[in-house]
């Protein structure tokens, strides 16, 4: 394995014996500012730490948030395997949100603050990079944890620790290191059969200089990686003991219910508290620049009292804006020739002019809310010139820094308390600050912890949305019916460069975008730009295939001659789905493929119409090439999850703007896929042995196109906008499934 980054291995002795070893890969960053870059960048730099105690117990600190994607299991599996530890000897802890776990720098007072007596004393301060450059390095996003932290950090730390333990054992036995082997948390001397536990060696190992180069295992040597290990976070999630941000509690806690400006970006003008203050338990009405909050001794009391509070917000030009206006603006922007290049190959214009046939398709997708199951919330306690914060976040260090800044404190005076996340999907990434800022400002008015909770309505109406996008496609065919040119104009901003690109061998391609600016706040949403672009490109490729008179699967295979990994996943998915075989009466198959976050995913959706002519998705067959699988069961779970998330968006997902504000309130008008809608999902992992790809997101993008491509075959109706609930279908003009 090649590591080109600057790196530092650190080790130190523990009080009472034992060793703590960490690995830090650092690179001064140029791209720290934008949310989009944080989730799409190709690298993350974080440290890992492995603690080995004299009793042979091993603790692995994971610097990423657990939001159901299984990183609290997958990352320790990688370290433990390289360490040659027994999985039973491993325990897992979330790394505290302190800079040390981002840059190897020690924060004085760590032990006192987190109650781990002095075990970090003496670690080398290896940081040559300023803290300013390292903000946000604990971010969990971009399907990055396992492929970056795991590959570049966890495995190396495990392998280094193993090497140091072997060196100690060999020296005790007066033997050479290569006469020793390791397994199940022990070092053996091969010829004599002597053995020592890691715990017995750890104190001595701590005195060694960490090796500069370590050798990682060949996959054939894996003992833990590649196995379907049960997730460490699941037991607490079946008995009610798992704690999420919203579960923070204390005896003296107060609770805030908040009403933010309904039209984004407007300010509060006046408040009429009515009888709210006389309600039981109500402490204060807090007026903030863009919101009003009621603070009470229970959330329900605060929420009920807020209903009595009248508030007026300033007038805004956006007050009359509707979704129709926004899409009309997108269309106007696209018609003006003021665009930026995403990709230019050949001469598309000339190919269009000389074409025998040109087809065109205008596509749109709406804004989407994240709708994580845990409504947004944040608890802040400001006391003794420090700020303590409890919240479910994909970016603990970023939150800590933000709360400190709002509270007028230094970053060192903020303490972050970790919890599980009740869903993230991009909503809990940095820069989506609204609940964090408000909770901090409200808590500054009290000397007890204040928990600010968004109602589901707040959560839905005050999100940072998946951007709505409009796109205009054209394709040109020559006299032989061969596609010669691909033209795509879409509305930006571009959050994920490359998402609009296609893998197909079309010699002339012009892909350009126009940035549009609306008053609707936007952010990353599971799979970011791939969610919109894949619906567009994989639907339009399907249009091209049908126009060319080709089977959509065969057409893709032909156009992907130079992409063997793509061809393989398409082939596996199509074969497993029974493509080309007889289907039940009234069923059809649609296919789509996309590479995102380093993984290639093909999906085949088996669809039909129910007695009311509404689309039904019976089964989704998915093939994923994510390089190889650290934990195959987690891979399958993540793929299932991304498919269901994509299906909710495809069938129902639509946030609309009316009078400048979000029209949807709660799940009844922002409907979700539930058990009755959930298809059978059949996942096939294609192990190419290439670099690890991401898992949290890549199965979401192809889903909408796979479903609507199937509906085209079933009904002859080409869907060019989502969600499907807005379309009428019938069996009147089916296309032959070929």
């Amino acid at each position, binding site marked *: 394995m090649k590591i080109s980054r600057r790196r530092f291995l650190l080790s130190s002795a523990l009080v009472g014996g034992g060793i703590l070893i960490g690995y830090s890969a650092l690179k001064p960053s140029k791209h720290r500012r934008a949310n989009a870059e944080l989730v799409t960048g190709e690298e993350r730099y974080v440290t890992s730490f492995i603690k080995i105690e004299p009793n042979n117990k091993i603790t692995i600190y994971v610097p990423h948030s657990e*939001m*159901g*994607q*299984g990183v609290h299991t997958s990352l320790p599996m990688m370290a433990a395997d390289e360490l040659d530890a027994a999985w039973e000897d491993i325990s897992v802890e979330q790394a505290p949100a302190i800079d040390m776990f981002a840059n190897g720098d020690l924060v004085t007072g760590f032990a006192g603050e987190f109650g781990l007596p002095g075990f970090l004393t003496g670690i080398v301060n290896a940081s040559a990079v300023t803290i300013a450059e390292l903000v946000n390095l604990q971010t969990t996003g971009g399907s990055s944890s396992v492929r970056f932290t795991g590959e570049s950090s966890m495995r190396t730390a495990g392998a280094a620790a193993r090497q140091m333990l072997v060196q100690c054992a060999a020296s005790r036995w007066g033997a050479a290191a290569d006469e020793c082997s390791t397994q199940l948390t022990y070092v053996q001397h091969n010829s004599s059969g002597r053995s020592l536990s890691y715990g017995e060696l750890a104190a001595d190992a701590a005195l060694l200089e960490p090796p500069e180069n370590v050798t990682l295992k060949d996959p054939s040597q894996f003992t833990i990686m590649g196995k379907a290990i*049960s*997730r460490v*976070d*699941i*037991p*607490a*999630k*079946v*008995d*009610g*003991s*798992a*704690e*999420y941000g*919203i*579960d923070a*509690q204390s005896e003296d806690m107060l*609770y805030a219910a908040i009403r933010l400006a309904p039209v984004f970006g407007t300010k509060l003008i006046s408040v009429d508290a009515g009888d709210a203050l006389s309600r*039981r338990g109500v402490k204060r009405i807090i007026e903030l620049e863009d919101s009003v909050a009621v603070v009470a001794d*229970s*959330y*329900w009391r605060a929420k009920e009292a807020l209903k009595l509070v009248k508030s007026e917000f300033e007038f805004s030009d956006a007050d009359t804006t509707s979704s129709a206006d926004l899409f009309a603006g997108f269309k106007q922007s696209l018609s003006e020739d003021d665009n930026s290049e995403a990709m230019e190959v050949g001469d598309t214009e000339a190919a269009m002019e000389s074409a025998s046939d040109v087809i065109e398709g205008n596509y749109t997708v709406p804004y989407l809310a994240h*709708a*994580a*199951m*845990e*409504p947004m919330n944040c608890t802040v306690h400001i006391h003794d010139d420090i700020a303590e914060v409890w919240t479910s976040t994909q970016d603990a260090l970023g939150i800590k820094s933000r709360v400190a800044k709002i509270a007028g404190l230094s970053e060192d005076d903020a303490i972050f308390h970790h919890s*599980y*996340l*009740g*869903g*993230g*999907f991009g909503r809990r990434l940095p820069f989506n600050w609204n609940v964090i800022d408000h909770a901090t400002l409200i808590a500054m008015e009290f000397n007890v912890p204040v928990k600010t*909770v968004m*109602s*589901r309505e707040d959560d839905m109406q005050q999100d940072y949305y998946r951007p709505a996008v409009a796109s205009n496609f054209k394709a040109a065919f020559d006299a032989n019916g061969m596609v010669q040119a691909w033209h795509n104009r879409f509305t930006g901003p571009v959050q994920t460069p490359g998402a609009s690109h296609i893998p197909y061998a079309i010699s002339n391609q012009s892909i350009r975008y126009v940035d549009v600016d609306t008053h609707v706040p936007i952010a990353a949403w599971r799979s970011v730009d791939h969610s919109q672009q894949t619906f567009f490109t994989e639907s339009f490729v399907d249009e091209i295939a049908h126009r060319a008179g080709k089977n959509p699967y065969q057409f893709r295979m032909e156009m992907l001659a130079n992409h063997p990994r793509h061809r393989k996943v398409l082939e596996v998915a199509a074969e497993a789905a029974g493509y080309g075989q007889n289907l039940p009466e009234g069923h059809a198959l649609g296919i789509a493929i996309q590479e995102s976050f380093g993984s290639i995913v093909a999906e085949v959706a088996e669809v039909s119409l129910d007695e009311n002519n509404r689309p039904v998705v019976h089964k989704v067959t998915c093939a994923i090439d994510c390089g190889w699988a650290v934990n195959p*069961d987690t891979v399958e*779970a993540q793929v*299932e*999850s*991304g*498919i*269901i*998330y994509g299906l*909710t968006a495809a069938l129902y997902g639509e946030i609309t703007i009316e009078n400048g504000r979000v029209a949807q309130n*709660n*799940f*009844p008008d922002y409907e*979700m*896929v*539930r*058990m*009755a809608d*959930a298809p*059978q*999902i059949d996942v096939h992992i294609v192990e190419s042995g290439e670099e690890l790809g991401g898992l949290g997101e890549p199965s979401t993008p192809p889903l909408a196109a796979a479903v609507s491509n199937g509906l085209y075959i079933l009904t002859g109706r080409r869907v060019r906008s989502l969600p499907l609930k807005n379309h009428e279908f019938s069996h009147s003009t089916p296309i032959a499934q070929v």
Partner: protein
Amino acid sequence: MATFKVNGIEQDLDIEPQMPLLWALRDELGMTGTKFGCGIASCGACTVHVNGSAVRSCVTPVSAIEGQEITTIEGLAMVAAGANPSAPDLSAVQQAWIDHQVPQCGYCQSGMIMAVSSLLATNPNPSDVDIDKSITNVCRCGSYPRVRKAIHSLATA
């Protein structure tokens, strides 16, 4: 005053009769295993048992459960075990949730497990249609295929 039993323990709370059971559990009793999801009985994250039947606690005022027996996720195994001191720490449904690795983020799973436990108590061998009709909880992580498998494993066990 509101008086009801939670996981076998009598509770007397000086709270408004309109306060939903969800907030009495979470903010008054500090029992946070029951989750707030939507506040309008749409998502099921707040599901508990009232006298053994699944109820969405976010719209159930405490006045409606006066004197009744509430079971939450924290007490599910204990109630399932009854007086049997050697019963396992988890109910069969909870164990199936581990065996099938059902939860992802896990936030909806307290409610999901309570809803499924109630279904299986009245219909020990539910068909897929039965499951679709009675389990209407929302899971944003999409654990549905595993929920279905876990339910069927319990039915055929």
